[in-house]
């Protein structure tokens, strides 16, 4: 297993996350897809850090920071989704077109 295979797995996971974000209609599942994309970036950061080591371990530190940012993003995103669902009674993003016109 070289660096390439990790990078390809990371790219595939990012593609899956992007597909889920664009194709699904459920707001919570869109948030899950964002988490998948963040995780794929984390995987490539850690892989680069393992194969091309830096004296300050930049890749691993960035991966930890990305995890914390992802946790904050998930918290606020889910709170927003719950607030919207409470007023709209649906999780389908197609139904959120009221702001249009």
């Amino acid at each position: 297993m070289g660096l390439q295979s990790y990078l390809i797995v990371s790219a595939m996971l990012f593609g899956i996350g992007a597909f889920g974000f664009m194709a699904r209609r459920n707001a919570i599942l869109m948030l899950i897809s964002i988490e998948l994309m963040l995780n794929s970036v984390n995987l490539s950061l850690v892989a680069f850090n393992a194969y091309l080591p830096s004296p300050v371990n930049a890749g691993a530190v960035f991966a930890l920071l990305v995890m914390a940012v992802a946790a904050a993003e998930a918290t606020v995103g889910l709170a927003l989704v719950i607030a919207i669902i409470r007023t709209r009674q649906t999780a389908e993003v197609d139904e959120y077109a009221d702001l249009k016109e």
Partner: protein
Amino acid sequence: MIGAGLLVVTLRNIIHSAIAMMVCFGSLAGMYALLGAPIVAAAQVLIYLGAISVLILFAIMLTQAGDANLPAPFHPQVWVAALAAVAIVGLTGWAAIATDWKAAATTVAIVVSALAKSLFTDYALPFEILSLLLLVAIIGAIYLARRPEEDERAN
């Protein structure tokens, strides 16, 4: 892991998607351990498997009262989305394959004490900003998820 990721975006029942997401995150933690970064693997298990998955499962169960089976999970734009995703994977995968990675032949495991030292010296400012961000996120989430009527009772 890729299979679990595919299941996440294709399963019809959103709770099953969340379980597949947990499987995907767990196998990612295994890959971090393989890459010689056990501290990142531990953080992945704690934060993603422990916190974010439970948060997402709670949100799903709070919002979908029984009718978790949706008639049509996909947008009409699903084929455009699939095309764009395949283009992303193709381009980045081609870049990863075409590049010569001779300099990156062996893995080097992370020494945890060195990682801690760099996190609290070289990266001390991002670390502190991050703690501020988490505080802001907590306050914002509490403000957003509060029921509006509780507000009027408080006044």
